[in-house]
């Protein structure tokens, strides 16, 4: 029966190829459109085992039955899914001979962010000189990690090299049916990162600090899976403060974290995708599903995000608190300027006993932007002794922007303790004048006030990331006041 079906499928798909599909496995870019054949093509291109192809196809079939969610406070023209191309081999950036050939405005931004010269060259696509060979640096770090048994590789590599781990955990936190964008990602994801930290290992370095350059071209449907085994620790950094442009407007990533007994995962993001022009035209649509599962007892998952980019941000990094005594944390700064729209927040789902969660969210809106916090704190009947503390603050710069808060609290266990604090404020003229009087120009004064406002969140970021993030906030809000 199954064989017949496969044969039939094969026949049909072959027929479809004749009608304009680029069937050649060596081809670099697929024509626009999304059918089962697209999914098969991607899977074949990546040499994936059958189980993964089946998994993708299942996701695709579910996705076809689903409709795009519109409950977010976001307005954008319809996304034409059949007009997008779903596979494109990573293109090599044109190499430039030296930094002199790079757009001076871009270099100026790099300098102000404090990005090292070596990194600037890599970001801008300049050939790196042989003295500090980035490849050898990376290899050294990889060897270092391998010694500890840490696996850190691309998702495609993990599928080939560590299929058991991938099979065991892929989709275990974000099931393929979870939501429209997660289903889409599951069907067509291009690549991403895979991390496994063995029992009792404290990962000796911040993952991806040194790798973030090569981790950049993973495409629009990124898939990340991080597994921290018993008593392990890992700090993972995603993204980059450097302004990033991408020819793909739609981004729908999925990130899954699994923390086993007493494991601790710290996941930090700085997102600075192209926000579009003053009217939001051409900016990235960022529909991301991020979720962690505190599967083991006394485990801890901590999300920290600084979101300054994208035209549309739809993102709710969440934690399922299954293990008794487990902890979830969410620290967020979301900045919107011009016509940017952000609908972001978190879900903390308490299932285990004595679980606790902390939510600190700082939204900053300027220009004509809209910034929403949307959160859910759920305490299940099984979660005896659960606790949550939420603090959601909004800061408005000017009078044409919007700040919104949509908190939901569901408590089904009488021992649960939930606290929620929220404030909305405007930057006071007298604060700016005070700083002006001490010689600080208005833009710098606003940056200082905003940085102070976000301090609790920024303090959570690893040191070097925090320094860049502070400068990024300053640059993002330039021209928003005065």
């Amino acid at each position: 029966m199954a064989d017949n079906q496969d044969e039939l499928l094969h026949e049909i798909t072959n027929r479809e190829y004749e009608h304009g599909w680029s069937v050649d496995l060596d081809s670099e870019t697929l024509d626009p459109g999304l059918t089962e054949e697209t999914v098969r093509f991607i899977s074949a291109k990546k040499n994936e085992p059958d189980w993964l192809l089946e998994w993708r196809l299942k996701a695709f079939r579910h996705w076809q039955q689903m409709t795009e969610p519109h409950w977010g406070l976001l307005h954008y023209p319809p996304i034409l899914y059949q007009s997008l191309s779903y596979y494109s081999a990573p293109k090599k950036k044109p190499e430039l001979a030296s930094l002199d050939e790079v757009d001076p405005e871009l270099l100026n931004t790099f300098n102000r962010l404090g990005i090292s010269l070596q990194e600037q060259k890599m970001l801008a696509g300049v050939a790196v000189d042989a003295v500090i060979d980035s490849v050898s640096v990376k290899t050294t770090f990889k060897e270092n990690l391998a010694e500890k048994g840490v696996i850190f590789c691309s998702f495609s590599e993990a599928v080939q090299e560590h299929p058991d781990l991938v099979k065991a955990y892929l989709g275990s936190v974000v099931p393929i049916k979870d939501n429209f964008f997660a289903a889409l990602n599951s069907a067509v994801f291009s690549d991403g990162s895979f991390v496994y930290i063995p029992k009792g290992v404290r990962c000796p370095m911040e993952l991806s600090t040194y790798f973030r350059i090569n981790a950049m071209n993973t495409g629009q449907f990124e898939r990340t899976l991080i597994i921290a085994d018993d008593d392990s620790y890992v700090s993972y950094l995603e993204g980059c403060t450097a302004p990033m442009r991408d020819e793909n407007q739609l981004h729908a990533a999925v990130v899954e974290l699994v923390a086993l007994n007493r494991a601790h995962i710290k996941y930090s993001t700085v997102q600075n995708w192209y926000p579009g022009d003053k009217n939001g035209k051409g900016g990235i649509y960022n529909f991301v599903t991020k979720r962690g599962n505190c599967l083991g007892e006394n485990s801890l998952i901590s999300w920290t995000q600084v979101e300054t980019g994208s035209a549309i941000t739809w993102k709710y990094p969440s934690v399922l608190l299954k293990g008794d005594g487990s902890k979830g944390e969410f620290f967020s700064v979301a900045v919107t300027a011009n016509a940017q729209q952000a609908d972001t927040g978190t879900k903390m789902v308490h299932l285990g006993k004595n679980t606790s969660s902390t939510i600190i969210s700082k939204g900053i809106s300027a220009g004509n932007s809209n910034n929403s916090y949307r959160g859910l704190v759920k305490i299940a009947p099984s979660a005896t002794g659960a606790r949550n503390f939420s603090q959601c603050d909004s800061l408005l710069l000017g009078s044409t922007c919007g700040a919104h808060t949509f908190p939901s609290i569901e408590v089904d266990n009488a021992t649960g303790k939930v606290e929620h604090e929220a404030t909305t404020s405007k930057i006071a003229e007298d604060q700016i004048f005070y700083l002006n009087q001490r010689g600080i120009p208005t833009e710098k004064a606003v940056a200082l006030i905003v940085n102070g406002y976000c301090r609790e969140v920024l303090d959570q970021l690893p040191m070097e990331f925090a320094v860049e993030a502070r400068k990024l906030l300053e640059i993002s809000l330039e021209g928003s006041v005065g």
Partner: protein
Amino acid sequence: MLEIKNLHASIDGKPILKGVNLRINAGEVHAIMGPNGSGKSTLASIIAGNEAYEITQGDILFEGNSLFDLQPHQRAAAGVFLAFQYPVEIPGVSMMNFMKTAINEIRAQNGLQPMEAAAFLKLVREKQALVELDAKLANRSVNQGFSGGEKKRNEVFQMAMLNPTLAVLDETDSGLDIDALRIVAQGVNALRNPNNAFLVITHYQRLLDYIVPDVVHVLANGKIIKTGNKDLALELEAKGYDWILETTQA
């Protein structure tokens, strides 16, 4: 150094200053006294560049140039300092970060390189000692959780750090007990030199026991109605503002 010429100013269409004339030379300390609502704080705010007020007439020259051509941060860089009557809290911004930013922004505007970290720390310690400010406050957010007295001492600390040419103290004595008053005055006196000047705004005479002024002005109803030496302050204290209002009207 500072020359205020026939200054008229209003807020929300309501005239506050109605022709203030004042000249301060380098090395001098001037005091402005006057009843509540006479326009003392308005004058201080206008010197610093607060845009809430509308200048309807007149000019303020600082070292020969009009202050009205400069934005508030440029006035600070030129050497104008205002010790605020109500210092503002800035949550999450540490005193150290704030002070370092202020010093370096002023230096940058004057074409100087940022101050070296070691030199900055040395300066902080020196000036903290001057106003007996608890070193722990340096790690706190600007003015947050400071007592009333600490806020005022913190203003004098900032003044000492920035070493201005002209310092305007807007009722720095209000709400201070006698010990705090002595410390604030001690800070001001230590900074006095032949090249700078102070404009001390106060409601009460007692601050002037500690900071002895060269010239005392009485501001009432938007105008300087009397100018004298330090004895004027004592006379005012003894006889009250009603006395001066009556004598000048007569």
